[in-house]
């Protein structure tokens, strides 16, 4: 029974010293820190997403990639920092932000069809207590067809392969017709055909001026699939165009030397706690 965390919680220090972010940017993250029971997961994350780009978040296991997405979407409460969407708080732009969670995060034995799941992307537009109208069903169906799942729309979701389930999740986000998409490992455990289908969808979203931020685990495909990359290991090691920041040096900094970084941060947090209390 927790209440939604506020996004306007601002760390009192620091912020004034930081450069102002542009209100046109779909996503700007300021000094975001997230901790689970005093253990920091994200430390002072600073990021600004340019529009109409495909952006990968890359980093080792436990680097806080999913947590970053969840913190942006208000699913975990930040200890400090602020996340802005088009210069405003998330609650004002919910409808423009799509989310594709990790496939493993739900029970696929739930009694719904692929079309039912895709239609969930329209629920917020439909509003309270109203059934899904034909027009909204049509929109959900279009989204399914867009990801090549039109023929399987009536199938119960447990009868779908992993790749097909991932496409249904993608269709649900597309049905919402958002301008910014967060996707948590959309390529994890999918077949080659699905991977191609997803990347085609991402490219067409970019062509329409939309921004997609993906947690991505396959370093090899980063340069081919994405325009920008954020190298994350609890804090942002580097971020920017793939050509500039996806370097060996930065990767080593992200994937190696992780322990020291953690120690450094825990120590800093302990210092902050002492200083504060």
């Amino acid at each position, binding site marked *: 029974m927790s209440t939604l965390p506020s996004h306007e919680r601002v760390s009192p220090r620091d912020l004034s010293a930081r450069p102002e972010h542009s209100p046109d940017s779909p996503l700007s993250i300021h000094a975001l820190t997230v901790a689970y029971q005093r253990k920091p997961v994200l430390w002072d994350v600073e990021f600004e997403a340019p529009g109409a780009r495909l952006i990968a978040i890359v980093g080792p296991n436990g680097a806080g990639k999913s947590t970053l997405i969840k913190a942006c979407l208000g*699913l975990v409460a930040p200890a400090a920092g602020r996340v802005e969407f088009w210069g405003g708080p998330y609650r004002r732009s919910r409808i423009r932000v799509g989310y594709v969670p990790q496939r493993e995060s739900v029970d696929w034995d*739930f*009694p719904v069809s692929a079309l039912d799941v895709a239609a969930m992307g329209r629920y917020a537009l439909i509003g309270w207590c109203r059934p*899904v109208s034909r027009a909204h069903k049509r929109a959900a169906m279009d989204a399914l067809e867009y990801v090549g799942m039109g023929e399987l729309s009536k199938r119960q979701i447990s009868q779908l392969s992993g790749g097909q389930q991932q496409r249904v999740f993608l269709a649900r986000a597309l049905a919402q017709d958002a301008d910014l998409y967060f996707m948590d490992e959309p390529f994890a455990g999918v077949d080659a055909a699905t991977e191609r289908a997803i990347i085609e969808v991402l490219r067409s979203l970019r062509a329409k001026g939309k921004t997609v931020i993906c947690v991505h685990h396959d370093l090899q495909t980063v340069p081919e699939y994405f325009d920008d990359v954020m190298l994350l290991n609890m804090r942002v090691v580097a971020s920017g165009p793939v050509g500039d920041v996806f370097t060996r040096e930065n990767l080593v900094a992200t994937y190696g030397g992780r322990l020291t970084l953690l120690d450094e941060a825990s120590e800093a947090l302990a210092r902050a706690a002492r200083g504060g209390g």
Partner: protein
Amino acid sequence: MNAPLASISDAASQAPTLTEIVRTLTLTAGFNAKVVVLSAALLGISAGLVGCFALLRKRALMGDALAHATLPGIALAFIIGAAFGLEARSLAVLLPGAAIAGIAGVVCVQLLVHHTRLREDAAIGIVLSGFFGLGVALLSYIQGGNYADAGGLNTFIYGQTAAMLPRDAALMGAVALLTILASVLFHKEFAIVAFNEDYARTQGWPVPRLDLLMMGLVVLVTVVGLQAVGLLLIVALLIIPAAAASFWTRRLRTMVILSGCIGGFSGYLGASVSALTPRMPAGAVIVLTGGVVFLLSMLFAPQRGLLAEQIRTFALRRRVAREHWLRRLYEAQDRGGAPVSIPTHDLVSRGLGLGSVLARVDLRLSGLIEVSGAGASLTERGTREGARVTRNHRLWEQYLMTYADLAPSHVDLSADLVEHVLSPELIDELETALRERKALPERLPDHTEREAGGRP
């Protein structure tokens, strides 16, 4: 403890006549029986509907904690009511007490889960037994004291359907109406929260409030169900109809409706049986009726029932065994260049059991093999079929080896079984893919050519 065991036809000691049965079932057996059967059916509908959503939200056991937690509430409400000189036994005093204590129980579970390292199952166990223990202690305190009319309190533990009055039936009707309305109005809201909580939150749905609404409905059904089936058994009425319905359908709307129907039917039939049978407590019979419906659903539901599943598994095994036979015979014949006879006991594949034995009968009846003495050999048609099966096998094997990089995502399909379920289109695709990679297996039997060769 005699009260809960009483049933409305306590006087009748012989078996019910056909007329009595028909009258009870058609609600014409007199006013009392009508009220009781109707109330139980309405309660069943409410519990079935609400239970369905609670089950899908994985909160079904929470209903049990809630039900047990109502007991101290009932006892305290009685004590407080008596202190204020109210008619302490009246439901208007007891049920609010039950509801408040039930909600307190749920809140305790939530607090334990959120603020300690305890998991939900442990938290539910602690709250359930703790509150119930407190309730039992309070009840014996009440019975030791000078309270008039305290004897009936423990009917809430086992329920006493037979004591239902017309106003109880009206209450059940109101609750049923409310749950039906809520199930219709909040269908999609409950669905999105139960399926994918995080996603629902990003879409702006107030998950805690929707959960509260759902639990509120559970509280309502539990509390009004207390005097009918009792707090020990009410959870069964929440879980069983939904669980039974889940065997019949994989569509949410159908499942909710079916769950309500099964609940209503259990209430109706259970209360009727109890009315006809002396000394049969209605609560138990209602739950047992639901249990029978569940059992039948689990066994005989056409798609997801155990029997259907067994039949499907067996059919697949038989097919696998059949194709193993054909491939073994074909490969032996292919090496030798002429039809060979292989001892049949060599052909029975271990692990396929009866399926393998039946496969032999199958193959023989369909004219694919000939059995002479202790050996079996392929007929001409059997040779063609064997070629096809062997070809599929080698293509699949080669595909797995060639595309080893893709295969990991498909390993769960069990490589050995897949080849038996590949469609002809998929086989064609396999072949094209392998040909493009110049990786077609050597010695690929070509059953189509043989067929073509046979034509004039």
